[in-house]
């Protein structure tokens, strides 16, 4: 156990976490030079493209120290977005220390702070590492000052490196060995293993990543999950070496994987404790909580014929992403689909992109919603996340919506713009602090509904990319909610209905009416598009009918072109959704969700 170190790298987006991880893996000799590619741990294409980590990965690095001893350094990777903060906390709970990576040019950012606090909550040893010291804009002295002043860490002991150039990598290794303490635990005590991740292997089922705190686990053991009491027989244990490397056993202090014939990752809960069925630990490791979705949206196939294929894709997808929950949903306009719950908006985007790219689905997603709470005159409290189930307003006595505490860190000069944005988004109770010269931290209480849509994009725009954003749920607050319906020639387009704050209903309705006007092609009759709350029309646009569509000349050389156009139109028509006698193209449903062009 003395020769084990368990650590994570935490950093603000873009501060070079993946690059440093790559460099450590390379320096440890895990990958032959020619097979090396950037961001080894980020296995999804999407992660590599966006430069963020979505699924965490873990790797055990062999390191021969100058004292001649070989250490096993377990690098536990963490996802890098607020939507996945619970996963991050479980990964951190598996470590004794972290490398806190700070960009030598950018300095300390909002996420750096948030990550630091998370690490401090777990009493981890924090090793500051200043990365990108090779950049011309690097200002190591200023960054050291920020580390001292804003993070209250000893900057003299900060390790300087450039992961990209391979400078200072050995110093990083040494700091891990010398400054992060070895794990503690009793190999002879009953087994207590913390689950911090699970991935899906099509042949073996769930591969559970865990940290053994006490006891040991061997192939053939009968293990039990604390949360649900499920029992499995262990088929294989081992450590991660980019590929899985089987071992006879895993012992207290070690990090590795367990394969036990578990069919899907949704049977495995992050944060759960694994023990032995015949010799269980007295109590589970602390900190387990069920991850609950907070953002909801329905997914429909573009062509209703593709419903079975979408169902299949979702089933396969959730094998590997336990956080996505879904159930059947249906819409008069869009046919059969699924109501899905997501951890946040980024999670939603990831699911959408992966379904489209990896599972080749063409999707229509409805406007995301949060879970609203309605108290009825019978005293019943109803939680509604799908506008279809909006209760009859006559019986509603109280309405509430979930609030978050939004923490925004940005350079001082953007403070006005951020304040304006947050106020527009119904932000309340603003607080400020100045964590360092020229920088402000702005805290608002805001409705979750206001940030799930395009808040993050807008924040990036108004702060020219310098603003960072983090949030936590702070519970429900009373709110004046209504259901907004969109009608096309008097017919309700159910997929466009929305539960929304009364004040936000009109601007939203106006925008939707305009977008639909742009997207719905002219018909032979006039089309009225209306936004309505209750029976009251609050926004309206009209599409004038076309009277004429005829080519003056059509001779021998025009026929092919004309036919091709018709073929295209016919194909487009098949993809149209009918609402009454109006054909609405798929693009209209997508356009409604687009952020303002500003």
């Amino acid at each position, binding site marked *: 156990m003395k020769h084990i170190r368990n650590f994570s790298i935490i950093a603000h987006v873009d501060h070079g976490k993946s690059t440093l991880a790559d460099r450590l893996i390379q320096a440890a000799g895990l990958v032959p030079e020619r097979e090396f590619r950037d961001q080894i741990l980020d296995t999804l294409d999407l992660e590599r493209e966006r430069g963020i980590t979505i699924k965490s990965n873990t790797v055990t690095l062999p390191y021969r120290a100058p004292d001649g001893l070989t250490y096993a350094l377990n690098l536990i990777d963490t996802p890098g977005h607020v939507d996945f903060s619970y996963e991050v906390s479980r990964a951190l709970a598996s470590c004794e220390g972290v490398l806190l990576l700070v960009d030598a040019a950018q300095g300390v950012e909002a996420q750096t702070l948030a990550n630091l606090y998370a690490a401090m909550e777990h009493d981890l040893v924090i090793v500051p590492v200043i990365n990108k010291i090779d950049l011309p804009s690097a200002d190591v002295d200023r960054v050291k000052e920020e580390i001292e002043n804003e993070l209250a860490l000893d900057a003299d002991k900060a390790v300087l490196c450039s992961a990209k150039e391979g400078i200072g990598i050995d110093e990083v290794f040494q700091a891990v060995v010398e400054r992060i303490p070895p794990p503690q635990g009793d190999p002879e005590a009953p087994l207590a293993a913390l689950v911090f991740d699970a991935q899906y292997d099509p042949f073996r089922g769930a591969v559970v990543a865990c940290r053994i705190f006490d006891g040991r686990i061997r192939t053939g053991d009968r293990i039990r999950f604390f949360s649900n009491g499920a029992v499995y027989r262990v088929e294989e244990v081992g450590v991660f070496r980019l590929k899985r490397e089987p071992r006879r056993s895993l012992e207290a202090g070690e990090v590795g994987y367990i394969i036990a014939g578990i069919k899907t990752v949704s049977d495995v809960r992050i944060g759960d404790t694994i023990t032995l069925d015949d010799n269980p630990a007295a109590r589970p490791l602390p900190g387990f909580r069920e991850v609950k979705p907070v953002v909801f949206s329905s997914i429909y196939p573009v062509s209703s014929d593709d419903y079975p294929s979408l169902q299949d894709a979702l089933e396969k997808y959730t094998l590997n992403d336990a956080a996505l929950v879904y159930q059947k949903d249906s819409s008069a306009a869009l046919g059969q689909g699924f109501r899905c719950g997501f951890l946040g908006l980024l999670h939603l985007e990831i699911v959408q992109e992966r379904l489209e790219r990896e599972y080749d689905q063409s999707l229509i997603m409805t406007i995301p919603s949060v879970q609203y709470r309605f108290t009825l005159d019978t005293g019943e409290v109803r939680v509604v996340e799908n506008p279809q189930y909006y209760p009859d307003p006559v019986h509603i006595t109280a309405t509430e919506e979930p609030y978050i505490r939004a923490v925004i860190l940005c350079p001082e000069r953007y403070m006005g713009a951020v304040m304006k944005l947050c106020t527009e988004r119904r932000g309340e109770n603003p607080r400020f602090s100045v964590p360092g010269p020229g920088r402000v931290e702005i805290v608002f209480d805001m409705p979750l509904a206001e940030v799930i849509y395009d808040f993050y994009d807008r924040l990036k725009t108004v702060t020219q990319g310098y603003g960072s954003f983090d949030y936590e749920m702070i519970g429900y607050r009373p709110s004046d909610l209504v259901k907004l319906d969109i009608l096309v020639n008097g017919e309700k387009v159910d997929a466009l209905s929305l539960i929304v704050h009364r004040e936000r209903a009109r601007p939203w309705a106006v925008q939707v009416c305009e977008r639909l006007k742009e997207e719905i092609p002219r018909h032979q009759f006039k089309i009225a598009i209306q936004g309505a709350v209750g029976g009251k029309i609050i926004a309206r646009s009209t599409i004038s009918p076309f009277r004429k569509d005829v080519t003056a000349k059509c001779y021998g050389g025009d026929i092919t072109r004309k036919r091709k156009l018709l073929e295209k*139109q016919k194909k487009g028509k098949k993809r149209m959704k009918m609402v009454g006698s109006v054909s609405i193209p798929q693009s209209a449903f997508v356009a409604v969700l687009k952020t303002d062009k500003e």
Partner: protein
Amino acid sequence: MDGHAGLYIHVPFCRGKCAYCGFYSVTAVGEVSAWVEAVLKEADLYRDRFGPFGSLYLGGGTPSLLGAADLRKLLGGVRARFSFAQGCEITLEANPEDVLQDKAALWRDEGIERISVGVQSFDDAFLAKLGRRHTARQAVKALETLRRAGCANLSVDLMWALPSQNLEHWRRTLETALSFDPEHLSCYELTVERGTALEAAMQGISPFDEALACVFFRKTSEFLRRRGYVHYEISNYARSRAFVSRHNAKYWRHVPYLGLGPAAHSFDGQSRWANVKSVRRYAAGIRQGVSVVQFREELTVEQRRLERLFLGFRTHDGVSLDVVGRSPEARRALRRAVRRDLLRIRNGRLVPTVKGWLIADRLPLLFP
């Protein structure tokens, strides 16, 4: 109506480019004789595969600028290579400025009975805007000259929906044309095509009002029908069924046609192909014996059906009910179209109304 194939020869030469024209043409009149050679050599390639032809159409470009020697060589060569059915219709497209007495006589002597004159307008201001190189006076003279030379099948091309044109102006245009008692009239709505000089010139000018265009179309149809013309295709009128353009009708009836010359299209009932859009590359290719076909497509059954639908709906003969199909879905669509007065059923055929013609490009989309 005969089922013989049509022969089209593309004469790609013009003295200048008209503002609205999207057809392929060049001004290098010096290459005419090389082009004649090439067309005849290309004809050799098809001599066993096509014919007898029921029509010959010299289109362009500007076929009327062909001199006597070139024209005689071309027609003689084509006649030597292909057979033509009894009473074959021979058409030549002419620009008014070319129609002089000797040309009219030449065409008559060469057996070209049908002359289609690109008058477009009898208003000099509009002619200038369109980039035409003739005046209203020249147009009138051309029609007079043709009649005097004994032309018994005269077709006049006119354009409407000219910027700021009103109905009265258009009626006067039609009256002037009718004073020559033409056997055939083509009345085209001015279409601003992409990449033409007209498109550039129209920048900032509001397009012709759509509702007004509908009125023009209906009024034109009414006016000419009252004057005894058959409105047999969206833009075409004949003094009687005998004067329907037999060549153009082949396109709309899906009858095979062979196109010779650069940029010419051909159709043999199964596939369609088109030659390169360059006189030089065309002539060089033919000389060297390499294929000048730049585009070729094999039509599927479904594609042939779609073409029959949209081409048929352009004409007053419409489409056979067999093409539309008899599935419940097709019947439903048909009933709906009839109820909306877009189509009518006549002798087992589905024929468009004037209202239907206004949305002719969408009629095929009504059916499964």
